[in-house]
Structure formats: C-alpha cells, structure tokens
C-alpha cells in the first residue's frame, strides 16, 4: 500500500462541455414565457386574458410589488368597494430591469379594463429612473416616494437623514423576515453554499428589523436571521411609514372622485 493519494477523478459533463449551459439557456427561455414574468405580462396585457374592455370602469387600481401585498390589503381594507390591488412578482427585486416594462404592461391592461385611477406601489427600486420614465410616458402616474421599501417604510426623510449611520445595516421588513428562508437563504443559496454568507454579508454589522407589527414570533425569527448571517440585531418599529400616507391619500382622493 502506498500513501500516494489516488488521482482525483471528476465527473464529466454528460453530453460534453457546455451541456449545462444549454440546459440553463433552455430553462431561461421557458421562464421568459411563464406566467408572471415581464414578457408574459406584456403579452397578457394585449391578449384575451385581460378582462373585457371597460369591465372595471370607474374603479381604482393599485399596481404593487408582491412584497407589499399584505400591508396594502390592510391599508385599503376600508376601501375595497372602489380600490382593487394587483401585485407583480416580488422576485423582480432581484432583477429590477424587469420592473419598468412589467409595470407598463399592467398599466396598459388596466387602462383597457377601464380603471379610472391608477397608483403604482413601487419605489425607484434600482431602476435608475427608468420606472419614473415609464410612469411619465403613461400619463403621469404616481408611485411611492423614495428609492426603495426600506426608505418608505421608515419614512423617506428619516431614512435619508440616517444614511451614514446605517451604511452597514442590512434591513428586513416583516415581509422579508417572514420569507427569509425562501428569499434570502435559498435565493442566495446560503444553505447549500454557506461560504456565500461571508461573501454577501461580510461587509455588514447589523441586521435592522424594520417592524410593521408587534409580533414576538416574528421578532424571534428576525433574531434567528441575524444569528444566521453573523450580524448584530436591532429592532425598529416603523409601522407602515410613508406607505400608509401614500395609500391613504390615494384612497381618499379616489373615494371623493367616486362620489363626484
């Protein structure tokens, strides 16, 4: 017996080099046509799937990021008689380049359906002004104030004042705490590749939980998340911040319009 290590054997790609790449390309082509994606929505907007022309005549619509669904439904609970909510995929957070055209497609569909008033519940969300350009082109539709959800949940002014203090903070809203495992752990493959925890979060020092509710179970979950990411934990109760202000204003404006 020798101590020499056996030559390392490796697995070769089944169908030769780049087979995996082909597989991934095929999957991406599939995704591009799956429901809920930008292209599919754009198609849907002009297709028979859209409601009959004018079916929603006189009603108001909030087009929102899926991450805000629960909170917006709460905020409009008294106004469901005239406001509808339509959510777009929360996963677009990770591919913000899809947001502007996805939102445009839904706006056009809403116009077809006869909605009288539309509000877009997105921040800039990393579109670098592209979403604002679309909203301008579609007739000056309003959106939530500020760059992203962490800012408008905190209150944009307040958030911007503390940019420097918070430069090394990683924020989680209640939504993100609730879906931490699927969105962050699985989304960034931190479970199968724990070395990525350091690559992704090595620059942060604190996980700041921007809480909407007083919910001890959620608080515990947020603390666990902080431990998992090797970050200190801080809880800030912010409620719904500017999201509430904006949605309530829209609800008020639209109900007075409805009475006219």
């Amino acid at each position, binding site marked *: 017996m020798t101590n020499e290590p056996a030559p390392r054997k490796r697995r*070769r790609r089944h169908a030769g080099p780049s087979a995996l790449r082909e597989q991934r390309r095929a999957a991406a082509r599939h995704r591009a046509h799956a429901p809920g994606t930008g292209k599919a929505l754009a198609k849907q907007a002009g297709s028979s799937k859209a409601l009959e022309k004018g079916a929603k005549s006189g009603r108001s619509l909030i087009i929102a990021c899926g991450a805000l669904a629960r909170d917006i439904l709460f905020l409009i609970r008294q106004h469901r008689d005239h406001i509808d909510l339509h959510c777009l995929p929360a996963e677009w957070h990770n591919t913000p380049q899809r947001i502007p055209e996805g939102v445009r497609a839904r706006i056009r569909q809403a116009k077809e359906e006869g909605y009288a008033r539309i509000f877009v519940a997105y921040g800039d969300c990393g579109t670098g002004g592209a979403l604002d350009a679309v909203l301008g082109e579609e007739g000056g539709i309003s959106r939530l104030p500020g760059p992203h959800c962490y800012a408008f949940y905190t209150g944009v002014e307040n958030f911007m004042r503390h940019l420097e203090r918070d430069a090394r903070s990683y924020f989680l809203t209640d939504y993100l705490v609730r879906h931490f495992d699927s969105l962050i752990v699985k989304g960034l493959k931190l479970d199968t590749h724990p070395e990525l925890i350091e690559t992704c979060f090595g620059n942060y020092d604190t996980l700041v939980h921007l809480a909407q509710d007083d919910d001890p179970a959620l608080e515990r979950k947020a603390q666990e998340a902080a431990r998992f990411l090797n970050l200190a934990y801080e809880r800030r109760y912010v409620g719904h911040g500017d999201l509430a202000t904006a949605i309530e204003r829209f609800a008020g404006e639209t109900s007075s319009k409805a009475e006219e």
Partner: protein
Amino acid sequence: MSDAEEDDLDLRELDDDELVEQIQDDLYDGLKDEVVEGVEILLERGWKPYDIMTKALVGGMDIVGKDFGDGILFVPEVLLSANAMKAAMDVLRPLLAETGAERIGTMVIGTVKGDIHDIGKNIVAMMMEGAGFDVINLGINVDADQFITAVKEHKPDILGMSALLTTTMPYMKTVIEALAEEGLRDDVVVLVGGAPLNADFGKAIGADAYCKDAAEAVQTAKAFMQRRHNRRASA
C-alpha cells in the same frame, strides 16, 4: 463499470484545448477546487500565467457575465464562479509578479460612500487584473478623500467607481468634482458602473464612460490605454 465511474474524468488526460474548455466549464459551474487544479496542470505544462488568466479564466468569466446579463444565471451562480476565479487568481498572482509579465496599466477601483455592494465591483477588478492591469481595490464605502489619496499615491490610468443604490449614485459626481478641484481630473480616465446606472447618467456626472459589465469595462479601459499610447507616441 458503473455509470458514475464512466463519467469520471482525469483532467490530466485532456489535451490543452480540452483542458481550457473544461476549466471554463468548471468556472461556469463554480467548482473552485477543479478550476484551481486545471490551472495548476496548465502551469506544469509550461503555460505562462498571463495566458492562463486571459484564455482560461477571463474567457470563462466572460461567458458567465454574458449569461448573467441575459438572465440565465443569477447572483449566487455568479458569486460561485467569481469565488472560483478568485482562488485561481490567487495561485497566478505571485507567479505573474515573478515572471515580470508586462502590465497594460493601473486601475484604482472602489464602491462609493454609503454603498457596500461589492460583488460586481470585485468582478470588474478581477477581470481588469486578468486583462493585464494592476488593480488597487479600495473596497466599499469609499469616500472622496480616499479616492483622491489613492490617485495621488498610485497614479492610476483608470479610476473606477461602482454604485448599486439610487441613494449613492450621486456621490460619484462628488468624487469627480473633488478630482477636478485637486487638478487630477485629466490624469485619470473615470469609468463608472453598477446596475442602476446608464450611459446618460455617466455623461451627466462627467465620467469618461459608463460600462454595463466587466467585459465592457475591460474593452473600454484597453481602448483608452491604446488612445493614450498613440497620443504619447505622436507627441
């Protein structure tokens, strides 16, 4: 023989072209150990570190970048590939210095103040290094003073700034103005990048160019170096 064994592969059995292709595939799949092993075999076969970097690693990472741009790969896959490339670069870097491989130019790069996104910036840094630039990576949350100090100290040809947040993009302009105040603006080519930026923004803040990804950054930097070289030659 089981199927698994049939699929096994000894990298040493591959000829050079096959091995380069295999390294690129392994890079794509984020297989760090395999990439490093492939690089070591190429070194044993007498390949120059510089050639390994450009042909196997940069070539492979270009494919990763393209598929990320096309929405085929996502952030974690890109990260695994980048980590694999980083491990291979760590093997090659000391050898590059030893062999005195010619460097094309120098770059200082950092993510601007308030922003600690660094995945894309690090990939740009690595690809620029792979393309033959000396790269001084200032890291994250870099303020104007730190950029200025680094420009004075390293006299780079290229200054690269990265921002991923709408709230930190404007700071790039602050840095460019600070460079001008110090009389350093004309000494460096300023490249900016990061997902929410675009060419119009780059122009508006007075950068020399906006680059949408690392491959474009390398191309643009090389083109500027060529122009600079020509100007010097004709002067």
